[in-house]
């Protein structure tokens, strides 16, 4: 019998929406047609991380890496790779930088600089098959903990590893567990925050979809450490695949005796269930999430008391996010020393980033703490598309700030990011180029916060609304210089007076854009111009009569019939009618239309 090959096809949300399910069907059909059913099998895996180039296909064991494989390619891929025994060059993944077709997965720029702990099984196993997880060492950490370690030892190992919460604040995970372990109470809970709210961050979804057992196992370990017997995973309802895979993982673990009563014959009991969120960003805040698990309005509670003493249903609770849990089994299995070797002095281990926006390789990556933004953006992710210039990168989502060219070489860790006016947050990283208006971006985030402010405390409810109104005014060209002082003033009040982190950090995007791009604010306020050509009231689209060849393409494309012109006569845009959608500009073959 020939070698047995496995074709791994990414079934993560990104690739799924790029028709990977149809591709799998087509591949299976082609395998059958070529009579290879005995030697080649197709597996649907979790996310590989390179979402931009989906659907991703990897042929193992040789790790040949194909990208953007269309349904129509299936037959040819099978015939070339397996029947003829050659590479299917058309879809071999190529790196953007040197354009050399790369063959092996581990050989690509995108993967070479990464260090994967939380994402270790993404793309490597079938997430719906517990046996595959067991085959790569799954549940050995749980067994070790239950049979060889005391709860205090577990807490100790996690503390010594230096692991800090990956969801935002960066609080020591071991400390958190310790407080809950020491808290008095007959009933305790462990909870997992999978209510990924930062728009543009999707690592938690990816981990739950691609490696759900790693979270289940880690939660059982945490439960043992603090003395809990029940747990909840609070998942965004917008993540149906993640919910499905997680539920399957829980059910299978129960069947294998890895959840439920008397786990592995040690007398330890632990049950786990899923609670669905219903769309509220504030539920990412820990006390709000607790309320939501209880079925109430997801409003934050004043702290103290902290959840470690009074959490779900008033009982001691630990709450960690998905990525934090995904580090636990590695720490237990490989030892805290190995984990603590990675990263910087105060930020150990790795961090997953979801990188999006104006970047060549949109996707998920995991780097060791201390990597610079320049390495992430330009080396790993291939830089900015279309030859545009890098302008800023936003980390920390609506609570974070932007990082500019001058700080690209700062090693990324929790403390450094705060020092340069941003924050780690959950690891969303949005890259912006010269076509993005920073005032508009600040307005966008404030709009988001106003929408998501729960309304419980007036500081946040009213303060954010006032800030949004001022930003809208500036974007509309009606701003005045005093508005800048007003923004700063309200920002201060919010930071001091809001009840929870959502409000306290709500003004960060405004403050950081003000600090780094004051000239853009001034251009809007004083010159009444939007330099990036985004703010509609401050931008005019005009046709250069010298360049216009009167082809009529823009006129045809305009949705509001704002363009007039006859054959052979340069066309003109009626500024009154124009809705500034930019369609004419992208349809002009002669680059005759510009923004002024």
């Amino acid at each position, binding site marked *: 019998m020939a070698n047995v090959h496995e074709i791994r096809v990414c079934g993560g949300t990104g690739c799924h929406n790029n028709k990977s399910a149809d591709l799998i069907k087509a591949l299976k059909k082609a395998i059958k047609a070529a009579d290879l059913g005995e030697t080649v099998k197709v597996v649907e895996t979790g996310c590989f991380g390179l*979402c*931009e180039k989906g659907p991703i296909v990897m042929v193992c064991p040789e790790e040949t890496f194909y990208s953007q494989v269309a349904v129509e390619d299936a037959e040819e891929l099978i015939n070339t790779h397996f029947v003829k025994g050659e590479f299917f060059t058309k879809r071999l993944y190529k790196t953007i930088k040197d354009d050399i077709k790369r063959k092996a997965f581990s050989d690509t720029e995108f993967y070479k600089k990464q260090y994967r702990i939380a994402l270790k099984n993404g793309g490597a196993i079938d997430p719906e098959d517990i046996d595959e997880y067991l085959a790569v060492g799954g549940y050995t950490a749980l067994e070790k903990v239950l049979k060889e370690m005391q709860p205090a030892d577990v807490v100790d190992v996690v503390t010594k590893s230096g692991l800090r919460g990956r969801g935002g604040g960066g609080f020591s995970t071991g400390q958190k567990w310790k407080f809950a372990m020491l808290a008095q109470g007959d009933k305790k809970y462990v909870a997992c925050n999978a209510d990924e709210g930062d*728009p*543009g961050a*999707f690592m938690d979804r990816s981990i739950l979809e691609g490696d759900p057992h790693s979270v289940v196992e880690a939660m059982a370990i945490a439960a043992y450490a603090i003395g809990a017997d029940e747990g909840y995973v609070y998942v965004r309802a917008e993540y149906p695949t993640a919910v499905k895979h997680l539920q399957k993982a829980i059910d299978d673990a129960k069947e294998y005796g890895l959840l439920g009563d008397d786990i592995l014959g040690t007398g330890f009991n632990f049950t786990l269930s899923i609670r*669905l969120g219903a769309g509220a960003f504030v539920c990412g805040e820990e006390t709000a999430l607790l309320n939501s698990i209880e079925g109430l309005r997801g*409003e934050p509670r004043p702290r103290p008391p902290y959840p470690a003493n009074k959490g779900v249903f008033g009982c001691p609770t630990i709450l960690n996010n998905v990525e934090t849990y995904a580090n636990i089994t590695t720490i237990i299995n490989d030892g805290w020393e190995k984990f603590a070797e990675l990263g910087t002095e105060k930020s150990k281990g790795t961090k997953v980033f979801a990188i999006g926006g104006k970047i060549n390789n*949109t996707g998920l990556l995991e780097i060791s703490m201390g990597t610079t933004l320049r390495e992430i953006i330009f080396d790993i992710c291939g830089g900015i598309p279309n030859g545009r210039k890098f302008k800023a990168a936003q980390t920390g989502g609506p609570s974070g700030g932007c990082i500019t060219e001058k700080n690209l070489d700062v090693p990324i860790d929790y403390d450094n990011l705060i020092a340069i006016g941003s924050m780690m947050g959950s690891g969303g990283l*949005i890259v912006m180029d010269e076509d993005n208006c920073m005032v508009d971006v600040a307005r966008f985030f404030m709009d988001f916060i106003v929408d998501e402010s729960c309304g419980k405390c007036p500081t946040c409810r009213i303060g954010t609304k006032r800030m949004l109104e001022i930003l809208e005014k500036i974007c509309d060209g009606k701003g005045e210089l005093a508005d800048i002082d007003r923004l700063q003033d309200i920002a201060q009040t919010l930071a001091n007076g809001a009840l929870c982190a959502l409000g306290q950090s709500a003004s960060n995007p405004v403050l950081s854009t003000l600090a780094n791009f004051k000239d853009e604010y001034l251009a809007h306020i004083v010159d009444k111009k939007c330099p990036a050509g985004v703010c509609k009231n401050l931008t005019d689209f005009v046709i250069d009569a010298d360049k216009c060849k009167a082809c009529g393409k823009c006129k045809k494309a305009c949705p509001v019939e704002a363009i007039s012109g006859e054959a052979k006569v340069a066309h003109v845009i009626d500024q009154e009618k124009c809705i500034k*959608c930019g369609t004419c500009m992208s349809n002009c073959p002669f680059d005759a239309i510009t923004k002024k």
Partner: protein
Amino acid sequence: MSKQDTITNFDAVKEIVATYRDMPGCLMTILQKTQDEYGYLPFEIQDAIAEELGIPTSEVYGVATFYSQFSLVKKGDYLISVCLGTACYVKNSQLILDRLALELGIEIGATTEDYKFTLEPTRCLGCCGLAPVMTINDDVYGGIVPNDIPDILAKY
């Protein structure tokens, strides 16, 4: 689909409440299951849930209006969701949304008079690699520009 009628049959509500009432913190789950069943949560449904659970309607209303996924009004046959997550926003998804509003002749967030389309912005759909992204029910459209909209709508 016809316009919003008053609901008079609450059998499903009763069944759902009976199934979940003993679960601690059951209200959100009940609302989710009920919305799956009826498509939305008008006042009469909220009243029925409150009565079954023996709690004030205000409590049900408080939760139903807190979370963006619960809808108090009926939606169209096709729900068009345009992602306004950050990754999509910086790639001009707002222009997509504006163009849809223009083509459909409705405000953002509204439903067409024939209850065919509802147009809504959403937050990150988790496939930022395809930005800007929009979905129409289960169909996903990625990497689109405003001019693609008329052809896409014509399919429905």
